[in-house]
């Protein structure tokens, strides 16, 4: 029930965001189209994803429910966490090498600093979450 309420709120928020972007595009024609387009797209995606979850027939299929249960058990959770951790490590190294590679090209310095900043935040979050989970479990 709580999930349903959250999903309905997200669908309404998405619809309002998309509607606001369309309204702003009409009322403020001089506004940058890219910004309004980004907000409109975000609102549309939020609305569609929330509707997809609300109208899903996943829980009606017993085989699907069984598969979901297997995915959420201890082994499934461990596998998913390991896969996400390795993929996150690859992403981290991609950011670091990307920052190094772009250093030699004529890109604004803020791009490099953004990439390095994101990598540093990721490492800090690794440490923070590890400490938090160690206390929790």
């Amino acid at each position, binding site marked *: 029930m709580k999930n349903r309420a959250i999903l309905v709120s997200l669908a309404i928020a998405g619809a309002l965001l998309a509607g606001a972007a369309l309204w702003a595009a009409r009322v403020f024609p001089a506004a*940058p189209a*890219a*910004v309004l*387009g*980004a907000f409109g797209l*975000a609102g549309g995606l939020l609305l569609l994803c929330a509707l997809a979850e609300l109208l899903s027939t996943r829980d009606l299929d017993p085989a699907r429910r069984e598969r979901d249960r297997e995915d959420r058990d201890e*082994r499934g959770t*461990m*596998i*998913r*966490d*390991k*896969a*996400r*951790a*390795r*993929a*996150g*490590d*690859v*992403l*981290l190294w*991609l*950011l670091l090498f990307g920052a*190094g590679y772009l*250093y*030699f090209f004529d890109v604004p310095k803020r*791009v490099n600093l*953004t990439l390095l900043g*994101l990598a540093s*935040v*990721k490492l800090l*979050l*690794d*440490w*923070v*979450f*590890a400490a*938090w*989970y*160690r206390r929790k*479990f």
Partner: protein
Amino acid sequence: MNRTQKKRLFQILLAAGIVLLALALLLEGLVSDALGGMLCGVGSGLMAMSGSTLLNLRHEAKHPEMARQHDIEQRDERNVAIRNRAKAVSGEALQWSIMAAAWLSIGLDAPLWVPITATCVFVAKSVLELYLIVRYQREM
């Protein structure tokens, strides 16, 4: 990798860091600022990382009980699960931060390749995650 091999590797990396830093100082003015900066940065990074690891290894050699305890803790199932969960969550946060940076770059009139690259990185990470899930389900 045992302790001796690790010690040898980091001694080599320390030497490489010193060489790169020395090159950065000697070649100042002869190479571009970008290359000099890169040599300096990589050299300093290698020196710092290798230096701290070698000091750690030396401390562990003097206190073998502590080293054994540290090894056990590193390989303990609970600690491995905790580290993986922490990295998974922070990796997810990083992935969505990259998307947020892509949205921001659209509003800041950045070149088109910036949001496109960020989106491709986002999708590639998701695909890699799915591939690894399937692979680990077979292996484990």
